[in-house]
């Protein structure tokens, strides 16, 4: 249904001032699939995502969208192909759901152009896909955390991009709402072929929902591949400095990571089949 776009990073080096965060990183995002980026705090996950959506210019290297450097593309042209939902977007006080979702149409509007039928249709479709149509007239301030996150995703959908980058879309949500948001993103991926790249904190949800898992450690890719290839006990030890057991999730078949702390563990550090 959608054109497939290739997104890749080439020898990407990112820095805040003097501090190097990512150094010489190569990454290919598989088109039409869900990629999750995982890693310890401050390993550069969000920085990488910010750079892929050109919020941060690379110190060296390039981010390529269909072979073109994103940092050289016209801003609105890029915004029609690649959408971004940052970790903490701001909802203006008193804004309604429909109004907020409508702002996703920004890349399609010039200074003088008027709100069009396509804009209406895109917003309506985005509300419907996220089941927020009945909330359209409500103020965003009044919504619950889960509803609000659905509304932000609706805004990103109204942007109608084939690629969608999300920075920790499940933060601050309870487990039911986390699953709801990830289910919604999976629906988008399956029905529209939207390529999704997201930073996730929860390894097990990442392993279950991602087709492609990227583990980042100290500004480098430690491992990338299917969740079964990436989420191993060695990987968890290297990336998080944590001993763990990895078993097969009986509900999905994906790898499931069980952390081994210092307490409440009967058989610490036992060798497991996936080690």
């Amino acid at each position: 249904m959608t054109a497939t776009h290739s997104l890749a990073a080439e020898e990407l080096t990112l820095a805040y001032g003097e501090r190097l965060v990512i150094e010489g990183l190569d990454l290919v995002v598989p088109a039409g699939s869900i990629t999750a980026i995982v890693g310890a705090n401050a390993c550069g996950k969000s920085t990488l995502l910010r750079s892929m959506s050109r919020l941060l210019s690379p110190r060296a290297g390039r981010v390529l969208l269909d072979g073109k450097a994103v940092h050289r593309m016209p801003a609105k042209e890029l915004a029609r192909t690649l959408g971004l939902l940052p970790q903490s977007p701001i909802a203006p006080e008193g804004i309604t759901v429909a109004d907020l979702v409508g702002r996703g149409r920004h890349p399609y509007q010039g200074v003088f152009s008027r709100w069009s039928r396509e804009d209406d249709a895109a917003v309506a479709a985005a509300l419907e896909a996220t089941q927020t149509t009945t909330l359209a007239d409500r103020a965003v301030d009044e919504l619950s955390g889960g509803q609000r996150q659905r509304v932000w995703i609706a805004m990103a959908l109204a942007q109608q991009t084939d690629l969608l980058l999300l920075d920790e879309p499940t933060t601050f949500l309870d487990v039911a709402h986390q699953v709801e948001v990830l289910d919604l993103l999976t629906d988008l991926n399956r029905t529209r072929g939207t390529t999704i790249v997201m930073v996730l904190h929860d390894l097990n949800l990442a392993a279950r929902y991602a087709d492609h898992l990227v583990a980042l450690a100290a500004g480098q890719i430690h491992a990338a591949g299917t969740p079964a290839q990436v989420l191993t006990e060695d990987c968890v030890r290297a990336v998080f400095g944590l001993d763990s057991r990895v078993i097969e999730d009986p509900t999905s078949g994906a790898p499931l990571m069980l952390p081994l702390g210092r307490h409440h563990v009967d058989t610490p550090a036992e060798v497991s089949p996936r080690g």
Partner: protein
Amino acid sequence: MTSVDSVPTPGAALVRRPGSVRFLWLLAVVAALGLLMAASVAIGSRGVGWSDILAALGGSSETIEEAAVTKRIPRTVLAVVVGGALGLAGAVMQGVTRNPLADPGVLGINMGASLAVVAGIAWFGLFSATSIIVTAIFGAALAAVFVYAVGSLGRGGPTPLKLALAGAATSAALTSFITAIVLPRGDIAANVQSFQVGGVGGATFATITPVLPFLAVGLVISLLSARSLNSLALGDELAAGLGERVALARGVAALGSVLLCGAATAVAGPIWFVGLVVPHLCRLLVGVDHRWLLPFSALTGACLLVASDVIGRIVARPGELDVGIVTALVGAPFFIAVVRRQKVREL
């Protein structure tokens, strides 16, 4: 991605904004402005009748009453123009900085314009209207950049309170500078008095006309920034993700507002709080969409300044209070109320 059929998509009706409500408010504000302008021409320290007003509007100024009305007409026009400029500039500044406390007065921008003009008159013998306007805009821009830079220092960048504090401190310092320049210069004291306290008294069409082109440019730039401000309101990151060139958009909108308040200050002196109060009121009426908020703020700013000017003439009969004093009396409690509201959140 989504097909657009000739059949309206279900839910599309919900998407349409309640434009009719906003349109009614628009009519109401325009009507209020008309009434206030009429009141401004009719009310003053000297009572006049309708025949005097009609005669004066026709260009006659033979009787004392007609002459009084003749003087009130340009004054009313100036109040409309300056009030509109300040209301709009305030709305743009609040959008650019996402700061509910932003106001050309609070941020020290009007005092920057005033100081530049006073210094220009005292030291360089500025005289022509255009040179004073350009100097005022230059001073406003310098003050804006300075206050934004100081308010951005330290953790968390330009938070609302830090920016307001930087502006207030800068204002206080600039006011002292103005006093220091004017005190030893009895020869120019009368010329620069209007740059210490803002007012619209003594306006003539000859003083108003030169400022109009500058205000017109500022108005156009500001109104064209409405869409950018809408995306900036969602945070810089999301705005950039929506294809906005954040720094450019912010710079252009800031330029528009600096033109407006610099030019307004050049012709009416520093006036506080119009740009603070008006956008907050307008948000209650028409919501947070800048495409509506900006023109509304201009109209409501005009209403507020004309009303303040009329009040200044009534309460201090037979003299009159400068409109800058009246807006400060109204605006200062409002400022405190905004600060005290549960938390000063970013817009």
